């Protein structure tokens, strides 16, 4: 187990390094850079900037150096805890991550919990009661959830919440609580606003997991060991929970690692529509503005989360299913 773990960690470090190089190159791949993008906007409104001034600005921003020099400067600074400066937001990247990450993680965890709590029981029921009314209802609901783009659902839910409960449109807090110190009232306000994003993003995630569990369960339900166990007089509930469910959870456990970054990904568009103070919309802004240090830091952070999550789920899997071998 120790060598297995050590091996995984080494792979992880290599993977993160490669990801950091690729993401840095990809961010820089579109034509132009942050500066040219902004200068263009200003030129549209009559700014005159000659070549010498533009070159000077590039030097001031460190954008005149070759790509690999910029990359190593970026990575070198990162080891000293300096993630650079966001040109677009005009805050340090560390400050922005600290401002946005906590809510991002809280929201993602709550959504993840919502997805599992809803989808695992439904998956089990629709497998056990295959082709029953319940199965059909859940299947239809699940597919609808999967098919509706979540920004559309977001708009509908937002309008509904505003019209029926008078909850202000967008955001995680009402205006008066955004800046207020934490209190019971502020917490209540947060809970009132949390519903919409959790449902909007959760519904799509739920549908997929229901299908996975249902399919794996169906494979297991017909197996011979089920007959044997029944013959031996095991109660139906205990039988299902102890054997097929355990097997059906395997695919869930092995994907748990990238569920978190996945959900953060779902939240990019939904986050814009719902105006959530989370990292998804920030990433999109950073990418469109070619704000490379900010975009790079976020992508790297999400990658690190994925890699660590994968290691964790590998360990879970090895523990939950003795048939899985590791090298």
């Amino acid at each position, binding site marked *: 187990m120790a060598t297995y773990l050590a091996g995984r960690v080494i792979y992880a470090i290599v993977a993160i390094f490669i990801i950091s190089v690729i993401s840095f190159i990809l961010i820089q791949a579109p034509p132009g850079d942050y500066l040219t993008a902004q200068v263009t906007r200003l030129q549209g409104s009559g700014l005159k900037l000659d070549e010498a001034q533009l070159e000077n600005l590039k030097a001031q921003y460190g954008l005149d150096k070759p790509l690999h020099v910029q990359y190593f400067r970026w990575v070198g600074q990162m080891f000293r805890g300096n993630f650079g400066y966001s040109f677009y937001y005009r805050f340090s990247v560390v400050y922005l991550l600290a401002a946005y990450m906590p809510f991002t993680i809280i929201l993602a965890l709550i959504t993840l919990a919502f997805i599992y709590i809803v989808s695992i029981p439904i998956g089990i029921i629709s497998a056990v009661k295959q082709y029953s009314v319940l199965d059909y209802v859940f299947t239809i609901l699940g597919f609808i959830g999967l098919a509706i783009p979540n920004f559309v659902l977001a708009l509908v839910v937002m309008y509904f919440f505003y019209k029926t409960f008078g909850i202000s449109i967008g955001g995680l807090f009402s205006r008066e609580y955004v800046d207020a110190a934490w209190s019971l009232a502020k917490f209540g306000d947060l809970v009132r606003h949390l519903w919409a994003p959790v449902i909007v993003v959760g519904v799509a995630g739920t549908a997929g997991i229901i299908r996975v569990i249902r399919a794996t369960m169906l494979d297991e339900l017909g197996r011979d060991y089920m007959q044997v166990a029944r013959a031996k007089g095991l109660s139906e509930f205990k039988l299902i929970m102890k054997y097929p469910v355990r097997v059906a959870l395997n695919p869930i456990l092995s994907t748990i690692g990238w569920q978190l970054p996945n959900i953060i990904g779902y939240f990019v568009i939904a986050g814009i529509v719902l105006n959530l*103070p989370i990292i998804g919309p920030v990433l999109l802004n950073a990418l469109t503005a070619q704000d490379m240090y900010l975009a790079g830091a976020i992508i790297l952070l999400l990658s690190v989360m994925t890699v660590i999550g994968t290691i964790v789920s590998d360990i879970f899997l090895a523990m939950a299913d003795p048939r899985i071998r590791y090298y």
Partner: protein
Amino acid sequence: MRYWRSIIAVVLLVAAAAMTAAAYQEAPMFEKLVAEGKLPPVAERLPENPRVLTPIDSIGRYGGTAHVYSNSQFWLWSGEMVGFEWLTTINPDYTWGTPNILESVEYDPGTSFMTLNLRKGLKWSDGVEFTSADFMYHWQFVANNKEIYPTLPDFYQVNGIPLDMNALDDYTVVLDFFGQPNSLFFNNLATTTTAQDWQWWFGMFQPAHHAKQFHPSFIGVDEANDQAAAAGYASWVQWYWDNTGCYFSMQDKPYTATAPTLTAYVCVERTPEQAVYERNAYYWKVDTAGNQLPYIDRIILHFVESTDVLDGKIISGEVDAEWISASLDSLPVYVDNEELGDYSVLMWETPAMSCLELNLTHPDLAIRAIFNDLRFRQALSLAIDRDELNEATALGLATPRSMSVPVESPYYVEGGDTAYIEYDPTTAEGLLDAMGLDQKDADGFRLRSDGERLRLTIESAEIAAGLELIREYWRDVGIDVELKAQTQDLLNERVAANLIDIMPGGVEFNIEPSFSTLPQFYVPLTYTWPGLWGNQWALYYNTDGAQGLEPPAEIQALQDWYNEIKTTATVEDRIAPAQNIMASMRDNIWQIGLLGGQPSLVIVKNDLKNVPEAALMTWDLSRMVPYNPSTWYFEAREAITEAWPDRF
């Protein structure tokens, strides 16, 4: 009778004089601070001769917090309620130079000396006096610093000769143009566009007492470099700008962390979610009753992620004022919810207009020849049904127009806005046939002289509904047009590389000061985005003939007229060359005008007073600046009596 009248007049004059000399009133927020001695009395905070503003409806009352919204972190334009302050202002009626920060400006066209007179006792928001030293500091250590500006900013030069700046005393700055006539410099005193330097709109001065703490000439090069590196900057210049910044509202860092300002408000808190602004204790304007402005205590600028969210905030009545992101597309929704949200939708005018730019210096010689045939441009213009376009894209609220400045402009020429705008596809087809595009292929599309089908592509950052209509209009007269959406970045590169056939364009700032400063939509002057139509001619102009294409005589004339405008002795002398430019546009259809005069929406809560019902909205006038948001007030919102913690 007459005798009595003059006595009354004298009495009124004396009363007015007595009033200005008498106590000024201030907001409740500062009363306690003055009593505690933390802040000097209001009379000492105001200059000897404050600018007096006349509120358009009524004298206001102090109080309230205004909530405004922005969907961009980079452009804090919705923070415009905080205000811009220029040395002088241009007025919507084209009159020039109402003194603002300055008390007066004297300009002698004969000697070309310009004298700027400062208001005695005007103070920065930290209480330090604003003097000619702030101009001289900027001139010596910023404008002429080779690391900040490798070349002296354009507007400090006339015909390549730099001006010279001198301070006569603390309150008088003299600019010497060395005999070069330069009425254009009035633009730079009163402008949003010409005095722009990258992301800082700096004007001609900086708070010297503050900025010196960040300048290598005062703290040493090593110290500046070290501090900049420690703060994560690639160079001291960016660090310098971030800490000294510009002197007005774009400042987006908490007051204690950034430079003092001259605006009505100072920033007291800034997070990625919002910026909070509070009244400037040293603001140098009063109303006609002697109340120190502004009336509104605080402004909170909330950042939202999209215009959809902004629309949601508007209809639910959370937005106190909005004039930048409110779009015409959403007008029906805004109007439907007016009562529920307790706001009003005002329709202001704009001088803006939209057009299509044909690349007249196209790299493909066959296409270039076709585009340069006047009959082709006339035909394309006649083939467009602008009334339908108006209904489909602007709810019928715009006006069909050919490319022109507004009728109110002194540069307008007769017929400039109506050239070839009628919908006449038959005449259009006739013109196309006459110019030799009469051969068609099996699909009914016209062939070029070399037998190939004439295919044109309109490229833009987004495919708007209007473009789809135009494609159909032009296909109807036999021209094969395709639409192609690109990212803005790619579009920029393709414009600079001169690869584009046709691009939608438009001029948002169609009056002074942009017109004289850079009439790039009427004269080929820009070879990067948005300068497509005379791309290579503009390159030729900008490189003194080293690169690009030599322009034909009529384009040469346009550029010569522009050179003339740049160096006239007086503002009036510009009218003749500017009218020549407009007449050339009318006669040659250099660009195909579409719609103009589209209304600009201004949304205000019903308890916000002193906002004009209708007015002209344009970035040329710095949008709201002529309408003085510092005189706006809330009918009944409570006054804030405590200043922001730790501010004083």
